[in-house]
């Protein structure tokens, strides 16, 4: 190969490598988890969520997870929720997972809610911590609601997401009030990550599973 050919080959190699690096960086920067907007407008919006024992698809099909319903009624595997500022947000959680139990029973109480918290239409004041499957907690807003798990022996339990209302579930409804605009994290306080030390790894440490962001806009 003559000199011009070698220069061309090296230049082409460098250009290819640069293109790969650029593609990787741009893809990384453009990759944002899906966000799901609440239905309704200020001053009253609604969020609909479900929890499932195992997601059923990649990258972690056996991880426990939250899902959110978008305004078109489709279940989305995403935990970035968008709600209006200075509003009452009513959350409906279809709870398909069985109980794990709280490590700290304190989170069995309801905190930061407005009005009654109902489980299958019945108002309750606290939850036996051993019956908790998950919590929906926004610590910066002082909100924490334990979610009662489906009985271990319940029939027709859901194995993979998205689950449907014909399958065994508990319906938990509560409301909280948002304040000023901002981004707040939310999380589960139940150590529900099966297969991880003390249940605190994997999905408990991952956005999109048992952790999310509440975008108050």
């Amino acid at each position: 190969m003559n000199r011009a050919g070698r220069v061309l080959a090296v230049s082409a190699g460098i250009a290819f490598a640069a293109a790969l690096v650029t593609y990787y960086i741009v893809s990384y920067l453009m990759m944002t988890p899906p966000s799901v907007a609440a239905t309704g407008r200020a001053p009253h919006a609604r969020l609909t969520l479900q929890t499932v024992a195992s997601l059923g698809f990649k990258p972690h099909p056996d991880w426990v997870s939250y899902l959110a319903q978008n305004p078109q009624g489709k279940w989305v595997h995403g935990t970035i929720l968008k709600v209006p500022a200075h509003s009452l947000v009513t959350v409906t959680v279809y709870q398909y997972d069985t109980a794990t139990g709280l490590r700290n029973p304190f989170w069995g109480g309801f905190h930061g809610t407005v009005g009654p918290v109902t489980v299958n239409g019945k108002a309750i004041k606290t939850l036996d911590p051993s019956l908790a499957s998950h919590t929906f907690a926004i610590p910066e807003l002082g909100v924490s609601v334990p979610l009662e798990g489906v009985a271990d022996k319940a029939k027709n339990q859901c194995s993979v997401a998205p689950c449907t209302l014909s399958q065994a579930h508990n319906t938990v409804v509560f409301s909280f009030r948002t304040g000023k605009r901002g981004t707040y994290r939310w999380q589960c306080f139940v150590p529900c990550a099966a297969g991880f030390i003390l249940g605190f790894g994997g999905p408990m440490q991952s956005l999109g599973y048992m952790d999310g962001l509440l975008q108050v806009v």
Partner: protein
Amino acid sequence: MTIPHTEVGPVRVPHHWLRMVVIWAVLSAVAIPLIVLVLGPHLPPGRMTSEAGSQRDANTLMTALLAPIVVSVLVFFVYSIVVFREHGTAIVDGPPLRGHVPMQTAWVLFTSIIVVALAAWGSYTLIVSSHGSGGGQGPDPVAVPSHRSHDLVVQVIGQQWSWTYRFPAYNGVETDHLELPNNSPIEFHVTSLDVTHSFWAYQLGVKADAVPGVDNVAFVHTRDPGNFTIRCAELCGLWHGHMFQTGNVVSAAAFKSWVGSEQKAEAPNLRYLPRYGRSYFPVPFRRAG
């Protein structure tokens, strides 16, 4: 071949050391009062508690002691650049440097005196003059307040990713917000129920590791009402950076009122809390095992 060199004639050499010492003394004499009187009252962590006040005093003293050292380095540096700068002529080797025993002895003695004096002063403030230490001392603290039995005991429980607080003197009520009475001795018992956290109540002068199954004791005596920030100072997982709260030091009456309202609000859940113990490490339920 002839090596280029500069011949030094019988010229009058100024007293460089004397000049530098004079400049150093003047600058230090200006810097130290400025640090103590102007900067000191603004140094962290404030005087909300006796322990925080001691820490501010320590920070002021250390900064004031550091000033002459920093000034000496800077003076020597700047003086050398300005005065010993070579102009145009070729550079030749200087005279060889040899050991100077009096200077070395003085240096070792001087630095040893500073270090030993600081150690003695630190030990005195920690143990002898102490009302306790804001730093976690483990389950069997050495530096304890003289009237420990009067302390308000607060158990601090770290968990991914929040702090909760138990008050054994108030029926073991647990809260997710911290209020403390002013002019009161407080005894923190810091622990964790998952991974290692670190309870850092900045303005209180408290920093104590929260270790699962361990009771880490720290003391403070509140002196001024106000807000204080609480952070986790140990990387503890996804939301470590969000493990942030604001607490309050309030009047004794306001504290009684607050803790009473917390007891009322938490009454439905109180029966599920475990008996108060020096650590908080409940047996994992079901799947969590």
